[in-house]
């Protein structure tokens, strides 16, 4: 698909990022999480809440999980001193946060606004464990699968099986994704899980949906993240080290359902789009935050993003090429698996991590000399593909 609008979009910069800790916080509401992240992003950007001209709030499951079906954006931002301006909530299942970011990018890139905030928040913990499972079923086609017994982990269990069947990807290679990400998480103060695990831990964890085990899956948790975007002029006047948002791509599924589920066509198309806009290739990416909702997901992302050929994702992780010191460091934050996956927050948390990485502020998990970072965030699954794939590229 040709990119026709490229020359009409002005450069957009990331000038601030803020994030809560991810984890289980029974006493903190989703509104409070969002307020905190938004406040910190504004402070980080060294601007006033009154400088924010438009706001986009990513939240996928606030209604079913908390009952707050409507107006989460307005509620979160009000207590951070942001009100009166256009505020909108975006939903694309697990890509809700990235979609909020995309809207903020469009707002500033189009020239309509000089600044915009994108905040994502989610509270998946509750006193009823069945509720989060039901919420996740809402990311499948409920009418023809989700209400007939399909579960989101079960769908990915089928993807995992198929990748092992077609390419000989091993149980151990899949486990290594979790081991790597838990190791990274142990170096991230905001991570939900901060203890390292072993391959044996993964392989012996309880079966969720054959062959998927508990440690192959990201956890249930809460949290929020926010980023401030600004035009080049505004960024130049206020920010020391703004980062260029070099590309934003969002695709939706096009398949009819009978295709190979071991590759996500949405990701492949979004990646092609994003690399073309940014004027770089996969070999130029130093650090990537990808959507490891399950261990097999990350292996597929290596292939779909062009880090390695199709089918060789298992070998890529086995050879250490996605770990610190590797070809491209993948999920230095700990990823969804270890850092956590409060759904609406994830896409923006990925950008927070890239922001800190490219500014040399990632502390113990710093990727040395990182200059270009990529974030991949996916949402929903039906007709054999994700419903939404969002890719953002940041450059120093």
């Amino acid at each position, binding site marked *: 698909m040709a990119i026709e609008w490229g020359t009409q979009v002005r450069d957009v910069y990331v000038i601030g990022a803020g994030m809560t800790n991810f984890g289980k916080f029974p006493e903190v509401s989703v509104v409070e999480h969002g307020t905190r992240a938004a406040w910190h992003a504004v402070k980080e950007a060294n601007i006033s809440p009154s400088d924010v001209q438009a706001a986009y709030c990513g939240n996928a499951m606030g209604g079913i999980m908390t009952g707050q079906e409507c107006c989460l954006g307005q509620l979160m931002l009000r207590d951070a001193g942001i009100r009166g301006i256009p505020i909108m909530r975006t939903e694309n299942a697990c890509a809700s946060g990235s979609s909020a970011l995309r809207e903020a990018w469009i707002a500033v890139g189009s020239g309509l606004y000089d600044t915009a905030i994108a905040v994502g928040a989610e509270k998946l913990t509750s006193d009823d464990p*069945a509720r989060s*499972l*039901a919420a996740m*079923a809402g990311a499948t086609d409920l*009418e*023809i*699968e989700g209400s*007939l*017994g*399909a*579960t989101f*982990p*079960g769908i990915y*269990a*089928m*993807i995992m*099986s*198929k990748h092992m*069947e077609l390419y000989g990807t091993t149980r151990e290679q899949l486990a290594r994704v979790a081991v790597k990400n838990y190791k990274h998480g142990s170096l991230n103060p905001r991570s939900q899980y901060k203890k390292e695990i072993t391959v044996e831990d993964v392989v012996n964890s*309880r*079966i*969720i*949906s*054959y*062959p*998927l085990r508990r440690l192959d899956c990201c956890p249930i948790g809460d949290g929020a993240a926010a980023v401030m975007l600004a035009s080049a002029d505004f960024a130049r006047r206020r920010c020391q080290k703004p980062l260029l948002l070099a590309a934003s791509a969002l695709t939706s599924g096009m398949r*009819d*359902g*009978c295709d190979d*589920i071991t590759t996500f066509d949405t990701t492949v198309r979004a990646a092609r789009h994003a690399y073309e806009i940014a004027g770089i290739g996969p070999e130029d990416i130093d650090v990537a935050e990808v959507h490891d909702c399950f261990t097999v997901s990350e292996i597929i992302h290596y292939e779909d993003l062009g880090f390695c050929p199709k089918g060789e994702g298992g070998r890529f992780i086995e050879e250490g090429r996605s770990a610190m010191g590797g070809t491209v460091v993948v999920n230095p934050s700990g990823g969804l698996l270890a850092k956590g996956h409060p759904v609406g927050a994830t896409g923006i948390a990925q950008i927070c991590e890239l922001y800190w990485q490219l500014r040399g502020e990632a502390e113990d998990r710093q990727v040395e000399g990182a200059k270009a970072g990529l974030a991949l965030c996916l949402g929903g699954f039906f007709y*054999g593909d994700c419903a939404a794939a969002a890719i953002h590229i940041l450059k120093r």
Partner: protein
Amino acid sequence: MRIEISSDGALLGSKCKKCGAIFYPKKLACLKCLVEETLELWPLSKRGRLYSYTISEIAPPGFAAPYAFGYIDLPEKVRVFGRIKCPALRPESLKPGMELEIELEMAEGEGGQKFKGYFFKPVGN
């Protein structure tokens, strides 16, 4: 609702009289020709081949774990989701490529039998 069955107990898809494409579930318009008028309801085969499956240890309300489900590829080149019932619920009992057939679940309701759901089972069982 998008799931509909024929009087003969088959799942209904849509077939385009113009380009011959078959879709599941039924559609409003042909997604290739992008017109409504050429589309007709089309009963799908009752047998297909297993593409991939899982045995779930977690169950949403209304279902009891462990239970199996998978994607079944029908000869019409459509893929259908379905629970799978087999005599022994073990990973070795199911294999991609094996032939499965659909069985409808009916329930007594006002005015006779009502369609409740469906599942697949190995051919010959």
